[in-house]
């Protein structure tokens, strides 16, 4: 490195190298986090959240018992309930298999709610379905890239 280079030239040499990009970005993130750390303790948790959890350890659907009767309206604290006229139907729905599980045993709540129906399906498919559209598209695109490169090189 020649000694008579100005400091700006040196910095621009570092920045212009692609290999240093990751380190630069990481450094920037560290700076933001350190500055943010000053304000972090003052971030108050808003107690009025959407889709709040209510736990009922006695229920057979334990971590995911959100109440409601199947094929009836269930109050779900969505952002805009009027946009999803059938919000709550999926939450309360149990397939025959999951109904049988719920009647039989006490510790299968996660399996029951992952089976079609339940609060998570309500959010993922109904009220926030667009998120899931984008997400599956990302999966599609990423695997498109991977399989294109894989096949080209093999």
């Amino acid at each position, binding site marked *: 490195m020649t000694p008579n280079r100005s400091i700006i030239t040196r910095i621009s040499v570092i920045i212009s190298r692609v290999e240093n990009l990751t380190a630069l970005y990481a450094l920037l993130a560290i700076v933001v986090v350190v500055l943010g750390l000053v304000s972090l303790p003052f971030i108050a948790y808003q107690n009025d959240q959407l889709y709040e959890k209510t736990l009922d*350890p006695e229920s057979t659907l*334990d*971590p995911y018992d959100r109440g409601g009767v199947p094929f009836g309206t269930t109050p779900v604290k969505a952002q805009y309930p009027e946009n999803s006229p059938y919000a709550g139907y999926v939450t309360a729905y149990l397939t025959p298999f999951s109904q049988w599980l719920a009647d039989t045993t*006490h*510790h*299968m*709540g*996660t*399996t029951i709610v992952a089976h079609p129906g339940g609060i998570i399906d309500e959010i993922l498919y109904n009220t926030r379905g667009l998120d899931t559209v984008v997400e599956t598209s990302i999966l599609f695109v990423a695997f498109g890239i991977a399989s294109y490169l894989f096949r080209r090189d093999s």
Partner: protein
Amino acid sequence: MDDLLVLLFAAVALIGAVSAHLQRDRFGKLIAVGIVFGGIAPFIAARGYLDVLIAVSLIVPVTTIIILLICRRDAHDA
């Protein structure tokens, strides 16, 4: 689960985590990761999520076996 049990199993998990960092041998590291999971399993059981525990305890060994694919012994100690 009362306080004493919490402390005991937390101790198991912490011993595993710290030793996984400090071990230099690759098999030692893997064993220590297994110990961490041993400390965590009772916490899942105590909350009553048994189906999750079954699934997780079958998948964690699969992860370990996948890592073992690149752990051939000839690369290092005698």
